């Protein structure tokens, strides 16, 4: 595709965002309605807005709603984190899962659980783990002043492998009483999602924090030197991207566990649709990520019901071939 949409335009951006928001609402409603117990739109709405006390309403309020919120937040978090990392590294293959960031978060969280610490410490440890893994990967791969594809992916894969080994080690030495909760955390399918709302709030705050810098991100994509000469405070912006991408990844991993490739596939899809203007791409990726993961999770728990698949299995099954395809296409 050599000819593309030529120019940024605010009204078009609002149209795209509005369309994606509608799609997100539709996916959400579908997630509330679908399952072993089919529930009509009216009953679902009644359960949410009218304090209905029927069994259907209980299912919607206490099972499906938290799960739908959790997967939507997780999809949005990972897609946004992926998009941010891709700008930060100027590399379209960057993704929290591929680069071992999710693994780092898991190591942090499991270590805190192994030590028997409170759940908020577990969340903090997940954040610290994500931050450390990112520091490790970006620092080590930053060989000649730029993050070359090969170095970056290799370093990420190695860090992910190291995290996998550390996780196995911790599971092996953990006392039986804790192994169950650790495994449950690790498998992290959305059915176990506790407290989904803070994640949604953090997601919204993250977007609000980065949107004022969105045009600076467009400039950064032209290269560090050009960005600095155009008045962008590159160091500050990089720290913001780095911190925010780590935070969003850690929140997502804490909520639902390791879900792979959302951060890779969604920004890519959205680039085809909306182009690479970060002012549109970031909110579009957030909404599309949430929508797609909500749909994927609805499929994961209905396709071979009563068996409920962890949603991460589904995203990995779709993500691996897509990633390999992109990797082969990007070899230039």
């Amino acid at each position, binding site marked *: 595709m050599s000819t593309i949409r*030529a120019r*940024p335009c605010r009204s078009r951006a609002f149209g795209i965002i509005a369309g994606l928001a509608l799609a997100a609402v539709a996916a959400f409603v579908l997630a509330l309605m679908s399952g072993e117990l089919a529930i009509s739109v009216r009953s679902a709405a009644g359960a949410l807005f009218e304090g209905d006390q029927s069994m259907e309403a209980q299912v919607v309020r206490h099972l499906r709603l938290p799960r739908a919120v959790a997967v939507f937040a997780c999809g949005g978090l990972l897609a946004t984190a992926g998009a941010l990392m891709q700008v930060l590294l100027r590399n379209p293959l960057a993704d929290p899962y591929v680069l071992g960031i999710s693994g780092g978060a898991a190591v942090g969280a499991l270590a805190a659980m192994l030590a028997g610490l409170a759940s908020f410490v577990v969340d903090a440890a997940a954040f610290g783990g994500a931050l450390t893994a990112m520091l490790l990967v970006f620092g080590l791969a930053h060989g000649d002043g730029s993050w070359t594809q090969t170095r970056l992916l290799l370093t990420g894969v190695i860090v992910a492998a190291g995290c996998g080994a550390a996780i196995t080690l911790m599971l092996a030495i953990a006392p039986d009483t804790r192994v169950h909760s650790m495994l449950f955390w690790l498998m992290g399918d959305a059915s176990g999602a506790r407290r989904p709302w803070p994640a949604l709030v953090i997601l919204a705050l993250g977007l609000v924090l980065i949107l004022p810098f969105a045009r600076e991100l467009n400039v950064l994509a032209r290269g560090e030197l050009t960005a600095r000469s155009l008045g962008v405070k590159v160091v500050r912006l990089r720290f913001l991207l780095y911190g925010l991408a780590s935070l969003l990844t850690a929140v997502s991993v804490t909520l639902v566990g390791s879900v792979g490739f959302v951060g890779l596939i969604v920004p890519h899809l959205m680039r085809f649709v909306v182009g*690479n203007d970060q002012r549109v791409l970031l909110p579009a990726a957030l909404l599309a990520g949430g929508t797609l993961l909500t749909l994927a999770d609805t499929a994961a728990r209905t396709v071979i019901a009563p068996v409920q698949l962890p949603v991460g299995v589904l995203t990995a099954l779709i993500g691996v071939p897509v990633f390999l395809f992109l990797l082969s296409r990007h070899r230039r």
Partner: protein
Amino acid sequence: MNESALERESAAAPVLAAEGLALKVGERWLCCEFSLRLAAGECLVLLGPNGAGKTTLLHTLAGLREPDAGRVLLDGRAHAAWRGEELARFRGLLAQQQPDHFSASVLETVLVGRHPHLGRWGWEGPQDEAIARAALREVGLEAMEGRDILSLSGGERQRVALAALLAQTPSVFLLDEPTNHLDLHYRIEVLELFRRKVRDGAAAVMVLHDIDLAARYADHVILLDGRGGVVAGSCDEVLQPEPLSHAFGHRLERHELAGRVVFLPQ
């Protein structure tokens, strides 16, 4: 031309000045202390062998790097006294080409040059687009505004970068090898373009590899030998066989041909 440029130097206030400037990379001094003054309407060319520090000097003049000694003044003020966007509206840098990884249209890419002219929440308006299109016309890319930059050749990408710089509309152009990747006729066209900008009141500092082009377009030349030696002065003073042969480590002869100065390696 050079005489009148020298006269202006003494008369006009410099838009770009360096005092007692010295640069080093690691423990190696690239150039010893020297000074320069560049007024509006003048073009300065930086010459020297590979690794002599031309790009480092250009970045220092742009304020992207602190000098290791001395100071740089833009319009009489140190870089630290400028706000980021304000500085970006006054001086623009053409950096050496970097690989692109994301699709974007040519017009979008040129519009990036409008960044310092827009507020935090601002979007590029019709006026910015008109400026970007005019810049594309100046580099001969007006028919390609919808093309994906990933599909362009190296020369076309260089012209897109030049158009983005023109859309930035700075008063001082800092150009790192502006003729890189370009075919011969575009090389001349681009240098003529900046010569026109300079005639219209801008100032330009450019890193060039070609001594003959430098002789044709420069008012002032700074010659770095990469061993700390700096020869600075008017075009006629610096572009002499002795300093050039010394800097480039190869004997060069000066000839005049059809009214132009050319240097031939022995």
